[in-house]
């Protein structure tokens, strides 16, 4: 049984009866059992996966209508709620939390007969970009186990890259899908803000984050979008995508498209290997008929500062509900009154979350908001204006997803500011609501490099076309596992 097939291939194989869902899912679970001790991608494994797959096989055999996923094994980041299963956000605060309802993306995938093989690791409450801030230990990069897999959706990227599932759902607040996708050589997608319902995604910075798929191929991402995108009455920020088919016309190419190269994202601090890979990608895009031109997005230089100010503010509010009164972990009330109890209970947040909550209490507070939070909102507004202006002339923007190569576990954990700067190329898409994709593009001494493309709001289809075109220009090594 070959587990190294794409989502589209899986669907085809099961549909035609070449393989059974049960065999594939059983082998996938076996794979998880074999490799995950080392990789630590999974926080929970769904014990009923194989039984569910067997039921789907029965449905196929007896000619019942089967959903488009045909029992495809998918992993889910542990900040997306699945009914009756543990959703911890990789935090001690939610150690025993079992969600009583399904996120919208989960109910949509259930309707299409997907199987959730497990919940995967992440930085606690999605704050971080290495998974080292998980309360349950870091995940390891399958390409080299001494290296971080990126984050915060590190478990998602690892599980896809190491063939522990066919596809995964992560969440992207400032690059949390694209960053690990780049570090683990998978495709990672952050859609236009509002394209995918956030209902059931545990909020970190709700005004800019989106759920996004991590897959082996760009076509698989388009397939996943077909499954989960669109208007949702449970999320007032969703937009009507008119049931767009993201797979149709994906091979149309990018002939004649104008692509801007963002100067600020290939400047100071970029790894020379990343720079040369980016130049290579640009010439490949030109070979495909695109017209590439260097442009400037001046506000990018303030984007990381603005990003951390805004996300900390929203996190301070979004995470306030975790007071351990209605749900959480085992910690008796006796001997406390309300304020002392919640202060004590909230000590269970890890160091990075605590750091951001402290910042989040400060930057929007009276007397300081003008200096920090209001300024950050201004940067967000100006950056959006700038990029909107550029998208009047350009169809797409290109940059490396991350300006540096994957680094070793522990290397940057004590240096939060240098970690923050790794986000420089990804946060712009979140602050402006634009769709963005990371496509595996190169490999430097066994460490993956991803290229990031961006398009204007609701131009997700064009973005996928471009990603597909770029993907076809390279042939990458297989993960050494």
């Amino acid at each position, binding site marked *: 049984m070959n587990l190294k097939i794409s989502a589209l291939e899986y669907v085809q194989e099961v549909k035609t009866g070449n393989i059974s869902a049960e065999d594939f899912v059983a082998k996938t679970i076996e794979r998880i059992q074999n490799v995950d001790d080392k990789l630590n991608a999974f926080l929970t494994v769904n014990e009923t996966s194989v039984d569910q797959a067997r039921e789907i096989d029965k449905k196929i055999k007896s000619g019942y209508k089967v959903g488009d996923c045909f029992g495809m094994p998918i992993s889910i980041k542990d*900040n*997306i*709620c699945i009914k009756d299963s543990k*959703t911890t*956000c990789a935090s001690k605060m*939610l150690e025993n*939390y079992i*969600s*009583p*309802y399904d*996120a919208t993306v989960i109910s949509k995938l259930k309707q299409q007969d997907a199987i959730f093989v497990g919940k995967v690791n992440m930085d606690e409450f999605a704050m971080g970009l290495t998974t080292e801030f998980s309360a349950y230990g870091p995940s390891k990069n399958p390409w080299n186990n001494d290296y971080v897999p990126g984050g915060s959706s590190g478990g998602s990227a690892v599980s896809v890259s190491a063939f522990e599932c066919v596809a995964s759902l992560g969440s992207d607040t400032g690059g949390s899908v694209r960053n690990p996708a780049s570090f683990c050589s998978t495709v990672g997608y952050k859609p236009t803000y509002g394209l995918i319902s*956030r*209902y*059931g*995604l*545990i*909020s970190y910075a*709700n*005004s800019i984050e989106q759920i996004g798929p991590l897959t082996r191929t760009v076509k698989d991402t388009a397939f996943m979008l077909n499954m989960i995108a669109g208007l949702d*009455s*449970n*999320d*007032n*920020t969703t937009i009507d995508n008119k049931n767009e088919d993201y797979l149709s016309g994906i091979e149309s190419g990018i002939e004649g498209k104008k692509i801007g190269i963002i100067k600020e994202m290939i400047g100071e601090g970029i790894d020379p290997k990343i720079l040369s890979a980016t130049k290579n990608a640009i010439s490949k895009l030109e070979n495909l008929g695109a017209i590439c031109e260097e442009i400037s997005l001046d506000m990018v230089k303030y984007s990381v500062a603005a990003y951390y100010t805004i996300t900390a*503010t*929203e996190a*301070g*509010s979004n995470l*306030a*509900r*975790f*007071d351990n*009164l*209605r*749900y959480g972990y085992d910690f008796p009330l006796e001997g406390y009154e*309300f*304020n002392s109890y*919640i202060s004590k209970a909230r000590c269970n947040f890890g160091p990075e979350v605590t750091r951001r909550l402290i910042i989040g*209490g400060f930057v*929007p*507070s*009276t007397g300081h*908001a003008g200096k920090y*939070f209001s300024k950050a909102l201004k940067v967000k507004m100006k950056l959006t204006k700038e990029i909107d202006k550029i998208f009047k002339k350009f169809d797409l923007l290109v940059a490396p997803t991350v300006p540096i190569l994957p680094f070793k576990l522990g290397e940057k954990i004590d240096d939060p500011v240098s970690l923050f700067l790794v986000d420089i190329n990804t946060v712009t898409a979140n602050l402006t609501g634009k769709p963005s994709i990371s496509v595996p593009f190169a490999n430097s001494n066994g460490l993956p490099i991803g290229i990031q493309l961006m398009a204007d709001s609701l131009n997700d289809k064009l973005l996928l076309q471009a990603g597909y075109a770029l993907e076809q220009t390279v042939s990458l090594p297989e993960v050494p596992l």
Partner: protein
Amino acid sequence: MTMIGLEIHCQLTNLESKLFCSCKANYREFKINENICPVCMGLPGSLPRLNQEAVKKATIIAMALNCTTPEKIAFFRKNYFYPDSPKNFQITQLNIYGDTSVGGAGSIMVGDKKIRITRIQLEEDPGRLIYEGSSSKNQITLVDYNRAGTPLVEIVTEPDFETPKEVRDFLNILSDVLTNLGVANPSLEGAMRADANVSIEGGKKVEIKNIGSFHDLEKATHFEITRQESLHSRDIEIIQETRHWDDKRKITVSSRSKEEELDYRYFLEGDIPWIKMDSAIHTKLQSEMPESISSKKERYVSKYNIPTQVADVLSSDKYYSDLFEASHTESNAKEVANIITTDLMGLVDTREKREASKFTATHLKELADSVQSGKIARNSSKNALHEILKTGKDLSTVVKEMDLGNVSDESELSAIITQVILEESQAVEQAKSNPQTINYLVGKVMQKTKGKADPALTLDLLKKQIGI
């Protein structure tokens, strides 16, 4: 000069569902913590889903109180930790970053005085704390989240009141307006709560929180003015503070917590996009608004010639004006108004009595018509009304069962009149010379028929028999 300003919280009790989910707005019918869902419990991952109907109702209130209504409205988060608040922030509205709440500056007339409205905002009600245990040592606090997320409109006034009486008059008018708009039932327990800001000449502003009824609001402001005046007369400084209304002892008590020092870190609620409220929407809402109390009153006076005082009483109470609208005709309007204001109001003076009564507009129409056509005497109509309220039977049945119908059979009445003429020969002679005195004879006929003789017919027949 004494200055009182109010912050009134009014639940939109007539809405079907809560402000951000489909749980019931009428939480009162439920057992503890049974009217809840992931959204109003603020469970991880849940998102608010704005009830558009609540926005409309709140906007209608703003328009009725002559407020400005912005083109776009937004929601904000007010961040603070409290056990009745499941998300530890409240979704509310704010005007500090431009006018984005449902209503801006407005006003309402209380008698001849104009009370200015600062703003009107739509927000969610928190849950309810229940204290158990006898002493403070073993007291435990329980939380019922059934109320959490109930749509609430906060009406903030300028400090335009000078006496508790003005506060009371304002609240009565406001209560009538809200009821007339069909947005709320202010008489429901906890549907209307208020905070009051009170200051006297030379003193600082004191905020009184947690006043659970309109009745108590008048009492609380009265108590607070007296307290402040007493301090002032003894040269004790009145400090700026927050006090709580002690419901049981009917006094205000200084709050130990420093609520004024809380920093709510307001910022835009990103989960609810801005809502466009352009002039087309406002025009549409305007056209759907029920007729205002003052317009009703004017119509009652000018069209039906109902006395101003009667029209005033009738128009300001939605229950009575709805009854009037449903039962009156061109000809019986005055009689309907009469029956409502002189008889009915005394019989159904509480909400419980109204709800228990089986009285309908049809009853009222028949009753007024019968009185007007002389089928039933005015006196008897009151007895019939009483019986209908109790039993809900139709008028004709009640009249028959209680024998209330007028004697309008000519031969039967003639016989009685003949007898009266025989018995009262002196009065008959008097009537011949002075027709005014015939009323004495009418009275005698009434006595014999226990008030059921048709008065017009009696007079006719009497005149005929006497020959005048």
